[in-house]
């Protein structure tokens, strides 16, 4: 009996260890930021609402930034829906060669280094290097603002490109799970393809639209890196946090971070509440609908008869323009700018001069690469150590669902607010364990890496049917530990590896949070932003291309592992 108790004790200790790791590394920073704002309310109040010098100017600014960010996020989500719905429909119901490549591209949008992507978009749409080269002038100015929505065009473009995968992937998953019989039944009852979509498929997919939309919303709300590159126009809330931190206005910054976290959390909670109450949405019966119904049905019938490729081409075209084209342009432009600025012919405007000339950006870039890799390796390693046992706890214990739920928090916290929270907790004004620099970056990256490693591992766990195999191993005489080591871990290996690569890629590309906590240990993505701000555009171009190429290679590795 003593042996049993001993092993139980070890088990309990292990669980406790993982829980502590989860709490300390992953959850505490966010909670601390929230509690900081509440406990230091007096200081915050004075800074924000009653500054002796500037009165409530800070509050006015916060309102402005927050309003703008919200507007941008809502606009991005609306556009995500407009082109994500047909794209998801296309991916869910069509078999065609190159489909997995298309899915990779959508995946790429999730892990692409945002500041590099910002440079790519900037290059594609302004100046003469991108599309502008074809028509002989800049397509849009950076300052062009989309009418009605009142958000800068390029902001919107970047935010859509970085958020639409959330909509497409959740919706595609839902559509693939949906029994094809519903659509077929509707068709046999006399409804055209369009009517079927409107009356059957769409209502059934609404929950997925909500959950994908809210993730996209949160991501847009927190997007920092790409927006900063385009940032001359209007600062968003996350950018304001970065600026305030660099000006040591921590109280004001933390209050804005607090508001961002609260906004994202409320959005998610609302959606969850909505979805919990009803997983199936019934459309209300409107009287006027039945009156215009006849016309609507006729139009839908006509549209259904049209060649189906129209909407496919439209959504694929959008995908190409906002995601693929910038990547091609940035990779291509490195060659164009290689030796000299193509427009002026000045050698000083060339990539070579900037990298190896007096400013010696090559050296800086290599140093930043080293820092980036160092951060990515350590934070991914620690995250994996926390995430893999957490997967066991999530799947084994009844409270696991709650744990999984809580672990979504780091995914929705806007990245610069996340950086700020880590800075506040571990940095000089909090526990004072470390100052801004590489360790603080690592602590920040662990926070979002844990859920990133966890999701593919959970998927592998569920897909492989681990519990039954472990059960078999136990009946054949394996101890619980043996069963995990000899049966489960080998089966989970691919899932864990996939998660590790994703988290590594994400860490390499992270911009917003890193900016806040990096001090003088610059990683590559913030370096890109710095280069843009220092007007060293060719250097930024090279660094972006380099980052994007790196993440492409990692993504290919990821797909290779997942598919096998």
């Amino acid at each position, binding site marked *: 009996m003593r042996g049993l108790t001993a092993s139980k004790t070890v088990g309990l200790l292990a669980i406790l260890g993982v829980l502590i790791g989860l709490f300390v590394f992953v959850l505490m920073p966010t909670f601390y930021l929230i509690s900081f704002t509440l406990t230091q309310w007096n200081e915050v109040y004075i800074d924000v609402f009653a500054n002796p010098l500037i009165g409530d100017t800070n509050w006015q600014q916060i309102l402005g930034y927050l309003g703008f960010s919200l507007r941008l996020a809502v606009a991005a989500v609306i556009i995500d829906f407009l082109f994500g719905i047909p794209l998801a429909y296309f991916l869910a119901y069509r078999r065609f060669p190159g489909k997995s490549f298309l899915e990779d591209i959508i995946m790429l949008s999730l892990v692409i280094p945002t500041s590099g992507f910002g440079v790519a978009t900037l290059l594609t749409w302004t100046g003469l290097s991108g599309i502008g080269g074809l028509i002989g002038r800049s397509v849009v100015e950076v300052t062009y603002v989309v009418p009605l929505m009142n958000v800068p065009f390029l902001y919107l473009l970047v935010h859509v490109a970085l958020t639409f995968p959330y909509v497409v992937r959740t919706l595609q998953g839902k559509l693939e799970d949906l029994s094809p019989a519903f659509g077929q039944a509707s068709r046999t009852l006399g409804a055209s393809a369009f009517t079927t979509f409107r009356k059957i498929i769409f209502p059934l997919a609404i929950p997925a639209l909500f959950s994908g939309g809210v993730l996209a919303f949160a991501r847009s709300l927190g997007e920092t890196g790409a927006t900063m590159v385009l940032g001359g126009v209007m600062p968003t809330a996350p950018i304001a946090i970065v600026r305030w931190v660099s000006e040591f206005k921590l109280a004001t910054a933390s209050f804005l971070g607090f508001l961002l976290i609260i906004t994202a959390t409320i959005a998610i909670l609302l959606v969850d509440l909505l979805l919990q109450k009803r997983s199936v*949405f019934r459309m209300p019966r409107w009287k006027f609908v039945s009156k215009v119904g006849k016309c609507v049905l006729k139009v839908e019938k006509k549209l259904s008869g049209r060649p189906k490729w129209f909407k496919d081409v439209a959504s694929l075209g959008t995908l190409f323009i906002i995601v693929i084209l910038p990547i091609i342009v940035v990779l291509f432009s490195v060659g164009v700018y290689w030796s000299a600025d193509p427009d002026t012919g000045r050698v000083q405007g060339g990539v070579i001069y900037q990298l190896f000339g007096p400013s010696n950006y090559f050296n800086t870039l290599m140093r930043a690469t080293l820092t980036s890799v160092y951060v990515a390796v350590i934070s991914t390693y620690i995250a994996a150590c926390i995430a893999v046992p957490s997967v066991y706890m999530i799947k084994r214990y009844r409270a696991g669902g709650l744990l999984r739920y809580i672990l979504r928090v780091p995914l929705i916290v806007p990245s610069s607010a996340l950086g700020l929270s880590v800075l506040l907790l571990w940095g000089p004004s909090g526990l004072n364990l470390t100052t801004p620099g590489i360790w603080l970056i690592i602590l920040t990256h662990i926070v979002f890496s844990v859920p990133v490693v966890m999701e593919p591992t959970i998927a592998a766990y569920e897909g492989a049917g681990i519990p039954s195999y472990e059960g078999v191993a136990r009946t054949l005489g394996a101890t619980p530990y043996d069963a995990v080591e000899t049966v489960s871990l080998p089966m989970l290996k691919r899932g864990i590896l996939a998660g590790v690569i994703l988290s590594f890629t994400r860490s390499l590309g992270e911009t917003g949070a890193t900016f806040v906590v990096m001090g003088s240990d610059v990683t590559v993505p913030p370096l890109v932003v710095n280069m843009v701000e220092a007007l060293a555009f060719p250097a930024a171009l090279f660094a972006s291309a380099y980052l994007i190429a790196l993440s492409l290679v990692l993504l290919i590795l990821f797909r290779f592992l997942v598919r096998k």
Partner: protein
Amino acid sequence: MPEVTLKNLSKSFAKGRIVAVDKVDLHVKDKEYFSLIGPSGCGKTTTLRMIAGLVEPDEGEIYIGERLVTDLPPEDRDIGYVFQQYALFPNMDVWDNVTYGPTVKAWEEKKRERIGREMLQMVRLYDRLDAVPQELSGGMMQRVALSRALAAGAELLLLDEPLGALDAKIRNELRYEIRKLVKDLKLTAVHVTHDQAEAMAISDRIAVMRKGHILQVGSPYDLYMNPEEIFIANFIGESNFLEGKVSHIKDDTAQVSLRGDLEVESSNIKIAKKGERAVLAVRPEAFELAEKTQKLGNALHGVIERIRFEGTDIRYEIRLVNDDSIVVVRPSLGGEWFEENDKVTVGFDPEKSHLFEYPEKGLRAELELE
């Protein structure tokens, strides 16, 4: 006039590697209850789905009535389709499900209401019209699905394993209800099932499919009494197969010499050549069973190896003197009673046996279900 005609219909999947339906010709008559049966993977469901327009054929033509519908989308074919898994729209209540067809066809409000009410009353679910599908039992859901298919005004009803997901008891009740509805409303029905007993019980005619081909079309009686192929003799009901050689033919009757030189006679000859290998098919219920000493026509001797009491019937597994094994089924209340290891005589009427050519691929391969 909803008759269905299929001409040279073919469909393959996975770039031609899997041939699901291979040059099928079929005619379903107006107001007929027609069943397509066969083992899983035989192409029966694919055929039905092609009639509905849910699967596009690779070649061939489909006529519903006089109309060529091969290239029409499902919504323009005027059919009713009933799915195995009901496929009731979970985002609508019973009433909206049943009136879905009239709604999307933009029928007048009054007509819509009337038809919805009639159809629901017909399946005795009018009092549940505001229930959501998830609250109903399987049998109720299928009745709603049935009335939904009928409410759209189709005269051709296509049923894809409609009873497959239901419990045995409900399955038996509902199959007669479906047939009655089809007959009362003077519809044509094409019913796909792998359950031959179900098809036998409700169909006017049945087509037996195997590996993408139609083997035989006929009434349930025809298929049972005159199977044209060994496979059908086994698939419709069951049969004992005894291998042997044709030793003599005279008029309609052949003398067959089984293994161990046991001589029997058979009247339904599907081959006619003397001296060839043959397979004799006799249904378990065609045998008579008696004590060893008794005389029977076409008598064979053996020992009862095992007895299974199945309620209505008793199954005897008997090893014949030539070491062939057969199954004999007798009614439990037939008056006779045997024990295991009893030595017995079995006999059968030559009229109730069938003689087939020995299949090229071998008997076992011929009977395979896959």
